[in-house]
């Protein structure tokens, strides 16, 4: 039953994604300045927005774990952070490819790029420390704290890279200056929805694995004790 729901969710996400890609590739005209390549934005930005959503969920569940010590919250935290980090990577790579084409360079220390890269590094720390802690309760508590610390850093990073005396060669944040034409808005929103559905399905799969892993741990303890 649970597995079917996950597959259904993933399938729904894939269908929405295919529908959206059809709109993006076949219906939308080329953009005046960039030609065809602007279409990357329909996967690039939804990835970033969904990563933010999953990281925020991870923050909430990390706090809930510390408050309740219920392991279900911890498994949501780790699943959301893994999927979120994957999406940030997706965002960085697609952005870099777009930048190579439009700006002629793979990487510019643009405000948004820098902040996304730092999010990636922060949560990489979480993913690295987690397997290094052997005892399950300790692992869950400590990594929840790391998740909270990492999230608290995001507003500071945003503040720091806006400091006027920080020298960044940035071609201007894209979304803060430009207005989006109305015909792009719908595919944009649907793109966010599609990645959200797929991401949620992945989170659910990962959560189930985490539950099985805990079952394995307890069986092992049982065997050792006997």
């Amino acid at each position, binding site marked *: 039953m649970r597995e079917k729901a996950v597959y259904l969710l993933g399938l729904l996400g894939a269908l929405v994604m295919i529908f959206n890609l059809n709109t993006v590739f076949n219906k939308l005209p*080329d953009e005046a300045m960039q030609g065809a390549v602007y279409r990357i934005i329909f996967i690039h930005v939804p990835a970033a927005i969904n990563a933010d959503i999953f990281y925020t969920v991870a923050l909430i569940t990390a706090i809930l774990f510390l408050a309740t010590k219920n392991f279900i919250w911890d498994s949501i935290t780790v699943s959301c952070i893994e999927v979120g980090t994957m999406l940030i990577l997706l965002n960085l790579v697609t952005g870099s490819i777009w930048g190579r084409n439009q700006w002629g360079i793979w990487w510019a220390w643009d405000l948004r790029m820098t902040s996304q890269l730092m999010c990636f590094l922060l949560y990489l720390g979480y993913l690295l420390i987690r397997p290094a802690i052997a005892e399950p309760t300790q692992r869950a508590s400590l990594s929840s704290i790391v998740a909270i610390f990492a999230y608290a850093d995001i507003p500071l990073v945003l503040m720091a890279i806006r400091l006027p005396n920080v020298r960044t060669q940035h071609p201007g944040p894209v979304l803060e200056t430009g207005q989006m034409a109305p015909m792009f808005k719908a595919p944009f929103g649907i793109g966010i929805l599609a990645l959200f559905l797929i991401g949620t399905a992945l989170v659910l799969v990962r959560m189930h694995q985490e539950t099985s892993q805990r079952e394995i741990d307890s069986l092992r303890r049982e065997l050792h004790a006997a």
Partner: protein
Amino acid sequence: MDITNLTFLFYGYSAGWIIITAFVLSLVSRGRRIDRELARLKSLVEDREKS
């Protein structure tokens, strides 16, 4: 339509799909490993209870 733009559009989307596929594949392989381990441990526990 500028041809290089199309090339980079292709690169961008392929990179995206590769990342997602790689993540899904790593999930699947981890899931298999966990399932196998769980089955092995369960049979071990059952054997021990029988004997």
